[in-house]
């Protein structure tokens, strides 16, 4: 497997090796030339003012400072050709189906473990595995209804999956708002209809949630979005999605359980709830079933869920499928459950739980990216080539103390996309997160969230670590 584009340089999304602009970027190249970098920078302030007025903000845990910070937005879109998207679309849908099949399997007969493909201890001794879910039948056998798959590109035909997010992947509101703002500011760019629209995502999400209504639901299912509240960093997104789906945004205190049913408190008295798109972690949804110290949860919710009185999206315990140690087995899951060849590759990964892998990782830590198995959001990781000897040594000690908690991957040369600088455009590393919806059908809007590392040379695209976002275009065959 080649991880590099061949010449030691990262893959350039806009230009080929000869410096010629790729077909799909021609329109944007003309637009940059017409406006000039200075002109686009002036429009940038306008974009930021719109973001702030609308209130699209993002809080960073543990950093203090501005509780409602803006994620930096880069005006220059990231573009996929129709042909590239056809491959991605197949690969993403395939992966989402396999992950759900795996979840159903590990909470039932565990055929994949019996077949000796996934080691039993990796599942059953994993903190993300929820024994309470064993034998529970969930509507449509869907556990992860919104699968966010982080994809990086290292060459013309080389797309690789960096990680899966099966619980509650965030960021889809940026996909929608970035497009909205680009259309508002530069309507001319979209006039020819060449960019596939993404604005039906909320309708598709609602349809997906309705399709997984619980057996106890008769008639039109009542869907709600459950948020921890306005202090949560993704609160804007919670309210935005509820709004566009036309459903209630509820906090745990708005709900209560009675007679095997979940109710919400309304001015007309209690109203039955059928499907909960919850943006609260498993640990906090029900203090009776999970963390007793949780102030967030709804006592009795899990009991109602197990009896088929309400659907939770995602299902409790879905995190076992996006665990970084399980990740290595996803290509094999695709073959095992679907009988298909994986369309998208994994990034090669060393599991430190394996003694040989661990020895290799400790020897090569300075070249690798090491991550905590349960970490997310770019926290708790080590980028070998960008770390000091002391940092590497300290991280090595952490790995030795608890090898099964770590994995490592090669330092990927992420592709670069042109990004607006003060005086010129410059290539910055990007990744991509599409949002695949799984109900009775698998749905994928043509787009996603492109995250960009705004600092030159930086490989960390997480918004919590100084990354920004771009509008992501999928071009249509015209």
């Amino acid at each position, binding site marked *: 497997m080649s991880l590099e584009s061949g010449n030691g340089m990262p893959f350039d999304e806009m230009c080929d090796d000869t410096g010629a602009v790729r077909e799909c970027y021609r329109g944007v190249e003309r637009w940059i030339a017409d406006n000039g970098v200075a002109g686009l920078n002036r429009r940038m302030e306008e974009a930021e003012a719109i973001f*702030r*007025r*609308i209130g699209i903000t993002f809080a960073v845990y543990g950093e203090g400072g501005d509780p409602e910070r803006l994620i930096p937005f880069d005006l220059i879109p990231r573009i996929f050709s129709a042909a590239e998207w056809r491959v991605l679309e197949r690969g993403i849908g395939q992966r989402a189906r396999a992950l759900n099949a795996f979840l159903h399997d590990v909470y039932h007969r565990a055929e994949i473990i019996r077949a000796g493909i996934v080691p039993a201890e990796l599942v059953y001794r994993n903190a993300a595995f929820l024994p309470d879910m064993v034998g529970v039948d969930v509507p449509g056998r869907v556990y992860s209804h919104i699968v966010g798959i982080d994809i990086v590109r290292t060459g013309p035909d080389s797309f690789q999956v960096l990680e899966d997010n099966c619980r509650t992947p965030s960021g889809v509101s940026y996909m929608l708002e970035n497009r909205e703002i680009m259309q508002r500011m530069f309507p001319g760019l979209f006039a020819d209809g060449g960019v596939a629209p993404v604005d039906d995502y909320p309708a598709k999400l609602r349809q997906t949630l309705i399709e997984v209504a619980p057996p106890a639901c008769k008639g039109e299912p009542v869907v709600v979005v459950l948020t921890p509240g306005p202090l949560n960093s993704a609160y804007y997104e919670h309210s935005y999605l*509820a709004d566009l789906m036309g459903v*209630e*945004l509820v906090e745990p205190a708005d709900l209560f359980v009675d007679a095997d049913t979940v109710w919400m408190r309304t*001015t007309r008295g209690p109203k039955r709830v059928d499907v909960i798109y919850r943006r609260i972690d498993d640990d906090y949804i029900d203090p009776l079933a999970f963390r007793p110290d949780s102030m967030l949860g709804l006592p009795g919710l899990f009991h109602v869920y197990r009896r088929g009185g309400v659907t939770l999206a995602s299902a409790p315990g879905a995190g076992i499928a996006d665990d970084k140690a399980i990740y290595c087995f996803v290509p094999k899951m695709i073959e095992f459950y679907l009988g298909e060849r994986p369309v998208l590759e994994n990034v090669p990964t060393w599991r430190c739980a394996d003694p040989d892998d661990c020895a290799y990782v400790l020897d090569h830590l300075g070249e690798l990216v090491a991550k905590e198995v349960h970490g997310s959001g770019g926290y708790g990781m080590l980028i070998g080539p960008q770390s000091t000897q002391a940092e590497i040594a300290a991280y090595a000690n952490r790995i030795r103390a608890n090898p099964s908690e770590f994995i490592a991957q090669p330092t990927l040369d992420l592709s670069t996309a042109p990004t607006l600088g003060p005086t010129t455009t410059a290539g910055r590393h990007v990744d991509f997160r599409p949002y695949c919806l799984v109900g009775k059908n698998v749905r994928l809007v043509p787009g996603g969230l492109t995250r960009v590392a705004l600092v030159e040379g930086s490989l960390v695209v997480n918004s919590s670590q100084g990354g920004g976002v771009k509008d992501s275009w999928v071009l249509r065959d015209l």
Partner: protein
Amino acid sequence: MLSRSADNLFWMARYIERAEATSRLLVMGQRMALLPGAHHRDEWRSVLRVAGCEHRVGEHALVSEADAVRLLVLDEDNPASIRTSLGRARANGRAVRTQLTQDMWESLNDGWRLLESYDLADARRELPHLIDWTKARAATFRGAVSTGMLRNDGHDFLRIGGAIERANMTLRLLDVKYHVLLPETEVVGGGRDHYQWNSVLDALSGKRAFHHVYGGQLRPWLITEFLVRDHIFPRSLAFCVAQIGYHLGRLGTTHDARHACHETVEMMLEQLDTAAEGAIFEAGLHEFVGGALNDINRLSREIAAAYHF
């Protein structure tokens, strides 16, 4: 709708009204402090009393304009300050983001951190600008509600909150005028008294409206009639109570249920309607205002109970 959403909409509207009311009070304080022979400490102390925060200055302290600006514009701990009111209006709005139109949200969100950057010297220097800015925020918000919001039960709760806060402010102004402002040596209807009544009308944007209704006779009992019982002046007690009654009536229909708050609002309307002209003033304005404030607060509690806030 969710009970919490009803609660948030109700308080969002109250805090917006409160921010505007506080800015009007500051205008009134400035005018009165400029009157010939004004005892400054009385003027600003009375302003703080209307705003319900007199206890934040010492009992015998000399209250200055600086104190008033600090407490009523900038103080984060004072629920009546403009900064707190706008911040809480926005926090309530953010918690019911899905019930607001984009324009309503933008009117709450636009410039919400402006006051954080002000110190007392800035705020005093730019007070006229800050007052205009606050009134513009409230006006933009009401405009967005008026032309964009669905006339559903959320709108009813919002308008009830606004009307309760307006009624409250009118009553407090009346009370302070009658019992705090006028030194004992002065005669009701005398020169200073005349100016002070003028200031009260000004603070409620009611001077021209009063002249339209009563034709230039600035008599204390007429002004009281106007502020308490007039049916077409939108800041009069009777108008606010009628508005509360109208929206409670709508909620009664849409929810198909009547509650204690429906009885209370009808009782209040009837009392206001049947009182003889001038009777309130003669029987004792202070007693009347105290009773009416109690009724309004009781109404507010009964609404919360009826709709499970």
